[in-house]
């Protein structure tokens, strides 16, 4: 019996020792926005490959849940597609001793696109809103040909929709006749094959098969999106409790967007990086 206890003790000490030697073994809990989710997941993939022993979990449960999780210390990093609400979330966080620090990792720009044959080159955000609300139904009202407008939107759960809904629609609901597609490539395919179509895609999906429109006189480019002149753009955040300890995994994760690999991931996810290598 004694022998067994001794044996057990040895095993326990061995296990704890190995645990100690693997002190680098850290876990990162990341939670929040479905918009930032793809970036968070791609970053996590990269980190898992780069640092063996690091455990990263990414949960896409929405910005509000990300904020709640950070306030309750249920996660290390909260992904958010908007800033914390000052009167509710921020206040509650400070009351609970959590100091939210925002890291802007990328810009989300949404381009309004039409078929290349469409003569219309420019719309105001109000005109786009009225198209999607069903108030403008023919291109001739906008200086185009006499043809019906086919409005194409992303599915209502997507982050792209969220951005568009907030910045163009000003949170008003779309008309019932608006068509929904489930991804950026699908929106692109629909607009490129339908002469009367109008749609919106992330800037990473622009090419010669669709024509991006100037919104309020400004052409969507990486420059106009990053410098904030293009109206349908917003920053994407990571929130941490205080600025992460320098050199820690959390710090590396929150500053990964500054590296070349991070920039590539952000571009591949259809967002606009803040860096320009």
């Amino acid at each position: 019996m004694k022998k067994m206890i001794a044996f057990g003790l040895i095993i326990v000490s061995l296990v704890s020792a190995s645990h100690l030697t693997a002190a680098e073994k850290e876990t990162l809990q990341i939670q929040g926005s479905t918009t930032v989710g793809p970036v968070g997941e791609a970053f996590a993939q990269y980190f898992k490959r780069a640092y063996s022993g690091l455990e990263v979990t990414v949960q896409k449960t929405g910005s509000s849940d990300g904020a709640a999780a950070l306030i309750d210390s249920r996660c290390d990093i909260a992904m958010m597609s908007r800033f914390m609400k000052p009167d509710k979330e921020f206040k509650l966080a400070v009351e609970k001793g959590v100091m939210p620090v925002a890291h802007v990792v990328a810009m989300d720009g949404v381009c309004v696109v039409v078929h290349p044959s469409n003569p219309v080159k420019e719309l105001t955000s109000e005109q786009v809103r009225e198209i999607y609300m069903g108030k403008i139904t023919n291109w001739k009202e906008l200086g185009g040909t006499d043809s019906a407008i086919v409005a194409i939107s992303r599915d209502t759960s997507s982050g792209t929709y969220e951005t568009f809904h907030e910045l163009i629609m000003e949170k008003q609901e779309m008309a019932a006749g608006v068509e929904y597609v489930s991804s950026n490539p699908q929106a692109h395919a629909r607009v490129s094959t339908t002469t009367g179509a109008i749609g919106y895609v992330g800037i990473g999906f622009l090419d010669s098969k669709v024509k991006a429109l100037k919104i309020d006189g400004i052409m969507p480019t990486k420059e106009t999106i990053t410098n904030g002149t293009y109206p349908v753009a917003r920053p994407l955040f990571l929130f941490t409790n205080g600025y992460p300890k320098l050199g820690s995994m959390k710090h590396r994760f929150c500053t990964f967007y500054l590296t070349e690999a991070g920039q590539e991931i952000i571009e591949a996810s259809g967002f606009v990086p803040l860096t320009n290598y």
Partner: protein
Amino acid sequence: MSNGRLDNIIEPAADKNESLVLTPLQDLKGYLFYHVGRLILFLITCTSVLAVLLIFIFVIREALPFVKGASIVQFLTGTIWHPQSEPGEFGALSLVVGSLYVTVVALVIAVPVGVVSAVFLSDIVSFRIRNIVKPVIELLAAIPSVAYGFFAIKVLSPWLMSTFGFPTGVNALNAGLVLSVMALPTIISVSEDSLSAIGRELREASYGLGATRYETLFKVIIPAAHSGIIAAVILGMMRAIGETMVVWMASGNATQIPSPWWDLSQSVGTITATIAGDMAETPKGSTHFHSLFMLGVLLLVFTFCLNMTSEFFLARAKKKIGKMA
């Protein structure tokens, strides 16, 4: 020679001087093997039943919070589907109607074509050609639905726009057309089986009474096989109403009831496509999330009723054939 061989076979059994009465151990062993074997087979069979039960329980459990939190009357009669707004509006009627639109379009095309093909294969064409054509038709069922979806977007949609001048190519008609092709193998296969199951006797008796081939087919064979044909149509209908990928890609997913009602060039949204499209990125636990499960319950109820009806007709078809034989 043959006698000797027969002896050889019998010999070993005759050789054994074992008593025919089993020992208690053998008795117990046999009893155990019989019952344990049955139990194992029973459990294996149960897995699929269990899967169905678990699906029902899980979907209903996830839908319950929605039933408690939102108005079920609004869900069934409202046409505004804005699950994302605050507060969300959950009127699923336009989705139900959308599902019915594409299904009805599919059936209007697939039922006549399917039944006529089945009659042709079972009664008119030579057996050799039938044996080539039927597998080819059944191959249609093996094409993945996403491939149909691509066809709908890349080929059918531009064609509809350029030929009929529709403003949009993804609409109720497009989805219905593709679904009809997808429902064809089911309809043809099952109706052909039920037509073939009507024996030669009936056909020969009809010809013997001086009926023409046309009269035999339409007054004797098809009425005799009608239970099986109805079952085939319902199975095809289930294929159409449950299909997700194609309607997601080809129907346009607009949550509206077309007005005027016959205008098939308008986009519609279906139950299945809405669930599939929204589920991936809906925050877990939100009313929107639970509303999707409520849609799932609705769909389950639909397919369950259809399945019951088809079982009823298939059972009747079998009974009838049994009686005739």
